[in-house]
């Protein structure tokens, strides 16, 4: 401190604060410079909206992958969000503190289990169950949704619990004192007050689901296919990159980077929507 002085400290901190944004720019620069020329060369419309992906014959349409990513992500939300939020409400409002003390760290521990482990369990346990009971190849959209849904549970539960617990006690006591049942209090007072945290947990889960690569490659089957049913095999945008990168050369490689560009743009749009939503909510307060 003595060496650099107050102003110096401030300057150093400001420079470090630019690290995150400059990393982002650097990543964008590299991904875009590798992928963007391809999009111009091939045509954005052809690239985004065509159904045919066959690099050997020069067809690079990623529409099936976009649709698959959307379906997998939505499906994961349908599986993970209700379970996660219900679990968070139960643990923070109805369960005894001792159960909470044991269960919450366990759930947070699960967030640290590598995604490949989830993927492997999907292959070994879930896919055969789907194949034998519902038909299809087993490695499918459904398997992807379930595995991703389970993977986002820790994120959804732990952030939702934090935001529910942050609701002041007095709100709840006020409601209970007016004769409301605990459930009425929960859904009319507590959940409303904790809403922004719960929404944040879902958005974070959404981000994790759309970006997940390894687990999806393992369980979703990877066919380039617009799914007709939950039992069809699908390939997401992330899977497309990771699957084919190792053997891709020339146009093919550029097309994969272009897939990365699209993924990058989708994430940026999602984030913008999320930050606008959060700002609006704050403004209302």
């Amino acid at each position, binding site marked *: 401190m003595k060496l650099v002085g107050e102003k110096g400290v*401030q300057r150093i*901190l400001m420079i470090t604060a630019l690290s995150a944004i400059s990393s*982002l720019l650097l990543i964008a620069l590299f991904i875009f410079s590798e992928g963007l020329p391809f999009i111009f060369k091939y045509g954005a419309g052809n690239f985004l909206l065509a159904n045919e992906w066959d690099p050997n014959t020069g067809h690079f349409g990623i529409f099936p992958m976009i649709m698959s990513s959307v379906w997998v992500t939505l499906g994961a939300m349908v599986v993970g969000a209700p379970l996660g939020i219900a679990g968070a409400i139960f643990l923070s409002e109805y369960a005894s503190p001792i159960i909470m003390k044991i269960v919450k760290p*366990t759930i947070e*521990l699960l967030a*640290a289990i590598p995604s490949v*482990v989830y993927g492997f369990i999907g292959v070994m346990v879930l896919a055969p169950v789907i194949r034998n009971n519902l038909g299809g190849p087993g490695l499918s959209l459904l398997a992807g949704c379930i595995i991703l849904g389970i993977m986002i549970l820790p994120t959804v539960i732990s952030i939702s619990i934090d935001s529910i617990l942050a609701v002041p006690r007095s709100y709840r006591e006020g409601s209970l004192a007016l004769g409301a049942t605990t459930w009425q209090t929960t859904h009319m007072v507590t959940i409303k007050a904790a809403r922004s945290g719960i929404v944040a947990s879902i958005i974070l889960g959404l981000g994790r689901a759309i970006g997940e690569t390894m687990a999806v490659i393992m369980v979703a089957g990877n066919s380039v296919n617009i799914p007709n049913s939950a039992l069809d095999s699908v390939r997401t945008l992330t899977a497309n990159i990771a699957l084919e990168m190792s053997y891709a050369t020339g146009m093919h490689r550029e097309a994969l980077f272009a897939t*990365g560009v699209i*993924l990058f743009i989708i994430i940026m749009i999602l984030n913008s929507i999320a930050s606008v939503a959060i700002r609006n909510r704050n403004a209302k307060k």
Partner: protein
Amino acid sequence: MRINPKYTQWGAVTILTSATIFTILILVFIIFFILEKGLPVLGLSFLTENPQEMGKAGGIFPTLIGTIILPVFALLIATPLGISTSVYLAEYTKETRITKVIRFGTDCLAGIPSIIFGLFGYIFFVITLGFGWSILSGGLTLAVMVLPTIIRTSEEAIRAVPNSYRKVSFSLGASRWQTVKKVVLPNALPGIVTGIMLSIGRSIGETAAVIFTAGSSLRIPSSVFDSTRTMAVHFYILAREGISSENAYGTAATLIIAVLFVNLLAYYTMHRFIAKRS
């Protein structure tokens, strides 16, 4: 139509309870599935021996080293950067256009899929800067990946420190930096540690970005320019390529136990720290 609140109460609690039990069962099943198949393989020799035939036989010693060294390297870079960024955002500026841009950038960085970090790390660190597949490339890539987590959790923790502490510190003639160092950071420490733990967990579990940047060599690294393989990558290769499912489960079980151990250690040290202060 109005249903008696008693029934809705009963219905809601039943649904919540069963959803929670279901969730916990799934999660417990995953842990037990891995431990049941993995623990029989696990033993001192499994941890301390070198793998043979790409991991088909032998132990996982080099991957243990990789799993420790890569996250440590990443955190050594990301922690100071992340904390100082959050200090800058929370203590040194008002909400301006710059802080908004920084915050938006941080959020976007957090949302980027790991495969993109992998691609970026591969072209930038491995190829352009010529670091090759190495601990250096992998560690830097992971550092960029976990940076937003550390920034966000630290910023939350710093903002949660009561403003009155800062006021008192200033009133006693402290400069801003002295206040940050002596009052703000010590009180934000538990939250900051949580962020670091989350980051360690994420970097231990990462595969896509690590394979592209740190490679997958099974040799014990002798410098930061050497390639290494983490347990997660080892597990992925063993399980995916069908090299040895016993050793794959053993590796996964080791990973889970290691993560558990690190978490417990963090909880313990933090509680001691808090107990000492209050």
